[in-house]
């Protein structure tokens, strides 16, 4: 099991080999409230780190999701588009957004590990 890395915009990425799995953090889902709509990227789309890659919406808020790494989208999670509530229930596991083939794994060094992210979040509250 590889380690999760986190962005300041509350995305996470978990890397196995050259493939990363991307989602949003528990903190992010909590801040948004009950999600009612999720838009995930199409397979095959090329993303640069920091590109807008998905949209999450609650009743009173909408937020862009930014790609934590550069690469090509392999597969999107169709389940969360049908059941946005899953992002509230299982944000860092079942409700992953998409998988991506990394084009520059060295980018990940710039992201936070769990301990650093937790500390970052504590500073926001």
């Amino acid at each position, binding site marked *: 099991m590889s380690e999760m890395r986190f962005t300041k915009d509350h995305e996470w990425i978990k890397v196995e080999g050259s493939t990363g799995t991307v989602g949003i953090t528990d903190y992010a889902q909590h801040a948004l409230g009950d999600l009612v*709509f999720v838009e995930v990227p199409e397979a095959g789309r090329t993303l640069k780190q920091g590109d807008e890659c998905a949209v999450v919406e609650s009743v009173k*808020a909408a937020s862009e999701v930014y790609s934590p790494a550069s690469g090509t989208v392999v597969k999107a999670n169709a389940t969360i588009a049908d059941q946005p509530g899953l992002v509230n229930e299982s944000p860092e596991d079942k409700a992953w957004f998409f998988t991506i083939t990394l084009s520059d794994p060295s980018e990940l060094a710039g992201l936070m590990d769990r301990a650093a992210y937790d500390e970052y979040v504590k500073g926001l509250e």
Partner: protein
Amino acid sequence: MRYLPHTESDRRAMLAAIGISDVEQLFADVPVSARQAASFDLPAGQGEMAVERAFTRMAGKNLSAGCAPFFIGAGIYRHHVPAAIDQLLSRGEFLTSYTPYQPEVSQGTLQYLFEFQTQVALLTGMEVANASMYDGATACAEAAVMAARITKRPRVLLSGSLHPQYRETTETFLKYTELEAEALSPDPLGMEDLIGRIDSRTACVVVQNPGFFGGLQDLRPLAEACHADGALLMVMVAEPVSLGLVESPGAMGADIVVVEGQSLGMGMNFGGPGLGLFATRDKYVRQMPGRIVGQTVDQDGRRGFVLTLSTREQHIRREKATSNICTNSGLCALAFTMHLTLLGETGLARLAHLNHALAVRLESKLRAVKGIKVLSQSYFNEFAVTFADDIDATAIVEALAAKGILAGVPAARFFPGWPELRPVLLLAVTETNTEADMDALVSALNEVL
């Protein structure tokens, strides 16, 4: 002043509670140089009687439609508004409420908007409608932008059948965006080739049915051509009464339908406010501008209604919103839905038939007038005629106005740079026209021609 309840002693007591002696202290943040003395040299307030007299005087300078045989259309139609509508519209709970952001105290507004959305979807043959836009022209422009958003294409093709003011409004909306509008020439005979102009950059084709010059068009071939090329078909309807008799745009393959709703419930009001109806397919609902009402349940499980899918809108999405629209046409939507409720399926069909039959009657009477030719091959309640020998239609209209007849709109009013349209006149007929009106028009035309 009758609208201001405070007495001087109220004001003194309130100032004391605030802890100041002079109300001017509350305006201390205003720069001294911008504080104006008591008067702006503007007139003082007046009582009800004086104000009413002022308006009666201004009203007296107009020739109102009810005082003349009246045949003007071109986007605003004079229909009979049943008495019940204005009475109910005047209820303070409708008139003086805000946008229904607090659903527990706005179920009245929310329910009639839900009913309105359903009626609009049914009427246009579409799956879903919003809770209204300002008017047909702005809704037309917003629909073009929406089509570009959906297709991710930049080009909007505007048919010559489109009302020139809808066209101008749409061109203005697109003027400083990355989108481009291509407008075709005015097309009184329905001869233009739209299909040949669709290409891979075309986001949508915008047509009006019945067209600005009255003509009706089977839109199915155009819809097929649009869809084959990945473009959308956007249909504008300026006269919603036509939908009681004519095939709906949805049935002919439209992807977005926009209607100017003024014809039902509202009266003419010199052209404003209008009412933009906006309908589309379910799959595009998140790209729609404007407010949308949805059904839900309350804490006790009872059916209720709320504003929904709000994340499209400016108050949440700001510069990424689908539109900047906030205030829309709530009360006009209420007038529209009330009128349609009174008409129902049976009444609307009857009203539409009556309009068409009267228009056909006028056309047949005009055939007997020398020097007039009817241009429109097919039409609903409005058609274009042309005068022989290049006679200026504007001069005819002015001459008939002098005789107390409001005889349609000269096409030149919209197209001053098109000499071939100089003799063209648009004539509209509704249920408000009597046999005597038509005879008056015909005999006046015989006199001036």
